């Protein structure tokens, strides 16, 4: 089954770190990504640019509304995601717990709605 791991974290957290700490933090993500690859479970994933670069789009009664900023204004923002394919939720949670983001923010684990289940 596919699961989306969404990393929610305070973007100011990374900015506060000194350079050496920052590169250690980023290296942990690199190692984690490689571990997912080597386990053969990684289907996709990326780090996202900060939420202040977001634009939110709504269409209401034929009118398109564009807003600067993320959908929800919260201190912790979606900062990146991994899409993994593992046998069950237990396995997905085990990978989520290893994600460096779980240590400084929170990782939300959501099962993907497979097309055939619609």
């Amino acid at each position, binding site marked *: 089954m596919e699961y989306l791991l969404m990393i929610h974290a305070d973007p100011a957290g990374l900015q506060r770190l000194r350079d050496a700490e920052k590169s*250690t933090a980023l*290296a*942990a993500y*690199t*190692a*984690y*990504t*490689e*571990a*997912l690859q*080597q*386990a053969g479970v990684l289907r996709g994933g990326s780090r996202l640019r900060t939420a202040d670069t977001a634009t939110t789009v709504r269409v209401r009664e034929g009118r398109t509304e564009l807003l600067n900023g993320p959908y929800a204004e919260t201190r912790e923002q979606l900062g990146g995601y991994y899409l993994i394919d593992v046998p069950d*939720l*237990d396995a997905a*949670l*085990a990978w989520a*717990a*290893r994600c*460096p983001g*779980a*240590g*400084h923010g929170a990782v939300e684990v959501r099962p993907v709605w497979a097309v055939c289940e619609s």
Partner: protein
Amino acid sequence: MGRSKCGPCGLSVSPEHHAAARAAETTARRSYGKLVALLAARSRDIAGAEDALAEAFAVALADWPHHGVPAKPEAWLLTVARRRLVDEVRRRVHDERSAVQQLLLADEAAEPALYELPDRRLGLLFACAHPAIDAAVRAPLMLQTVLGFDAAAIASAFLVAPTAMGQRLVRAKRRIREAGIALELPATDELQGRLDAVLDAIYAAYAEGWLDADGTDARRRNLADVAIWLGRLVAALLPGEPEALGLLALMLYTDARRGARRCEAGHDYVPLAEQDPRRWDAARIDEAEALLQQASRAGRMGRFQLEAAVQSAHSVRRFGREVDWAAIEQLYAVLAALTASPVVALNHAVARAHVHGIEAALAALDALHGDARLAEYQPYWAARAELLARCARREEACAAYQRAIGLERDPAVRRFLQGRHEEALQDRVEAGGEGAVTQAARR
């Protein structure tokens, strides 16, 4: 204590209410499992017993502030909970002479509240670790039925979604009731095998608690303490079983080093070899040593006694003595023959490095390469990396460190591994011809 109805109600403010809430809380903590075991002894309906007990705690919180805490709070709670069970049966079966009801009333008559309540918790533990119960749910089931932890707290500790954990616990209890699993000590010829399952489950709970080295997560730290508590319970109730003593000794040896796994100043991880033995809990180690000696007098060796003996060999550093790696290597050799566990094989390989050299250890690790059970096991990759770095196979060492870092859950251990990885990388720079520069910088 997880179950909401057992905790202080939080609504009342008068001193009497506080005293009642405290008495209920204390009784719950001390005798939850004892009461569940007694209530479910005949019906085998653990869920029903827990519900009845939760109601009894609620009644106690309402009653005790007005009438005072009874002289024997456990017996009081047992009587109220039993009445609830009888009422429940009455609601379901509209027959005053129902067999279950008669049994429940007979239980009450047989145990007048004047006497000390018998301790049937061991029977409950054996039911939780019954072969018909899925091995992964045995430890969670013990924590819930014997100690009253709620599903959410257990779920976090075992890294299982709370709803899924709740369902698994419900299913396991239904299985005990429907399959008619007895809440009793197994027959002598069965006892050995069944006891192993009980001890395994307790150790599983301890191992989950042990992962939280920071001790920042109260639930986790609690879990290691709770596992030791369960270990003490089993050792006290079965003092003639050397493996029960061995497990308790093993948990005490490692728990004695809990604080020493973090540096005094910050949150940095300190591996066993670099720990300051003065920061170990000497009283706990002494207790473990005594338990292990007591166990060995039975003359029946087993997995937990062997693992405890390994920890004993490490603990001699507190007397300023060298760790006896030859003994550890031999202990792991026996354990490997006994258990066929890949983790034991890994520890055996690491011990070989100290006795037979790094090449021999790496050869042993190579034999494990490709074992699916180790592919996602961080300590395997960390051990491999360490050995490779020490015999200057740096490229491979770095790859193994990287794998270990990606698999680690604990941020402090991850930082530690990243530090080691960095050292291995710097050595590679030296090998590439810039050694002089690096050497100078180091000086």
